[in-house]
């Protein structure tokens, strides 16, 4: 194993993150605060409670998920797209490092950044609503797993993308709708039956549900199913990345 390569890539990427830390953190914090004001205060005052939880608190897990998913995908996709764009990928391709090592370096760096942002948003949430986290260990585990799996997904997007438009398209056109329609701001049980069935095909439902269970002990789907879904998604991404490096798709001529 070339762990030194993983470490080098990780630290190099983290250094880039810390150079732009302020803009990385300010924008999610501001947008999350706005969500709290709009959803929590304005709308929440009329909704009262969802499944025994105040609406303001109910949306916290969903809001964190929204930011973490977006951040993971965009951090990781940018992380690997940029070397492709500047040509410095030549070094990754000619280094004595395996696909797993290169992927680990970039994905762990992207996941770390989204984890930091997720944590900051959680801290911000405490300013707006009363929160008690019932299963903190599970909460952290869900958060970390989500950061990693969606960073893997973002990594694939970064390799796939041929230009900056494509790079931004996926978070915008895929992630945002999936999160909004994935029960981030409502309980699935509030939907008409047909939509409940359709929603079950949305992978984000399982993430938000598991994550929310860790907070409040209530869930749309069972904990086991949530865990299986996120593990399955992670495994799928890994297989795809393995295949990409094996065939050299969009990496090597």
């Amino acid at each position, binding site marked *: 194993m070339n762990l*030194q390569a993983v470490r*080098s890539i990780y630290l190099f990427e983290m250094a880039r993150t810390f150079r732009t830390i302020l803009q990385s953190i300010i924008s999610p914090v501001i947008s999350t605060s706005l969500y709290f004001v709009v959803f929590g205060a304005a709308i929440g005052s009329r909704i009262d409670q969802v499944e025994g939880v105040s609406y303001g608190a109910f949306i916290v897990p969903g809001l964190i998920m929204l930011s973490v998913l977006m951040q993971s995908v965009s951090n990781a996709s940018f992380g690997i797209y940029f070397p492709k764009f500047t040509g410095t990928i*030549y070094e*990754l391709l*000619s280094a004595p490092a395996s696909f797993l090592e290169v992927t680990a370096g970039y994905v762990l760096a992207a996941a770390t950044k989204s984890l930091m942002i997720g944590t900051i948003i959680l801290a911000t949430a405490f300013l707006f609503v009363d929160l008690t986290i019932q299963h903190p260990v599970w909460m952290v585990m869900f958060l970390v797993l989500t950061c990693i799996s969606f960073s893997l997904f973002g990594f694939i997007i970064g390799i796939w993308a041929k230009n900056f438009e494509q790079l931004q398209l996926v978070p915008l056109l895929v992630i945002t709708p999936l999160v909004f329609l994935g029960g981030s701001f409502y309980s699935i049980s509030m939907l008409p039956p047909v939509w409940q069935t359709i929603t079950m095909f949305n992978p984000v439902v399982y993430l938000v549900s598991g994550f929310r269970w860790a907070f409040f002990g209530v869930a749309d789907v069972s904990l086991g199913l949530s865990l299986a879904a996120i593990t399955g998604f992670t495994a799928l991404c890994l297989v795809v990345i393995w295949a990409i490096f094996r065939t050299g798709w969009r990496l*090597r*001529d």
Partner: protein
Amino acid sequence: MAPIVSVKDLTKTYTGGVSALKSVSLDIEEGEILALLGPNGAGKTTLISTICGMTMPSSGRITVGGHDTVRDYRKARDLIGLVPQEIWLEPFEKVHATVAFSRGLFGKRRDDAHIERVLRQLSLWDKRDAKVIELSGGMKRRVLIAKALSHEPRVLFLDEPTAGVDVELRKEMWETVRELKSRGVTIILTTHYIEEAEAMADRIGVIAHGQILLVEDKTALMQRLGAKRMEIELQERVTEIPQGLAAYDLALGDEGRRLVYTYDTQAERTGIGRLMNDLQSAGLAVRDVHTTQSSLEDIFVDMVKEDAA
């Protein structure tokens, strides 16, 4: 001794259908400097990229230090340093950081002293905290070299290292390359400057249209090129070479107004003195004399033309 780099029957056809390498075989000995010459699009970069792992071979086999570059890529790439033709650098990174990064990527333990040595050797130490974007073109190219040297390769590929580098720096770069050679590093460089190949290489390879036309010892090649021509302009036209001069390798030119004498500069006697005497004896008055030497460039241009025909 087994060659440090061995390329056997390598072909490369790009996805678009361009056949960039056609059954290339090449052995590179440890410690030598091999210069690859060839016109644009000859396949020099493709050959290097395929050895280094950026491009996948369509068929054939490559070993570096005895390790297959596909199956045993880790061990093979451990030995290789690559300086690409293009300036592939991240614009906002600092010089020292990006060079140190390369070392780590190649699995080598951090070694600030080594990085400092490399940066000093390439006159980049003063610029260590500058961002890449603030550097001149020649400096950027040296950063690329520093990155490749950061992980102490045994085989160094330099793809047009002196393109866009001024004369003085070029000489300095040659010096760096010689120093590396003296430490036992094998160097493969591509260039369009014949004098660069002449000045640096132990062996010279010529590649065109994806094929290696020749790989030869430089001194042997230069000897072959040692032939010199002396053109003797005559006061008056002659219709044929006079009897008394039959012993010389002479040709008639410019409708009899000129004699062309070909001789070997490496030979002990060039025969010029005797020829001059004999010209006088034959009653030919000489108006002017000048000599030309065929260069590597002539041979190279001829060869590429022949190949195209």
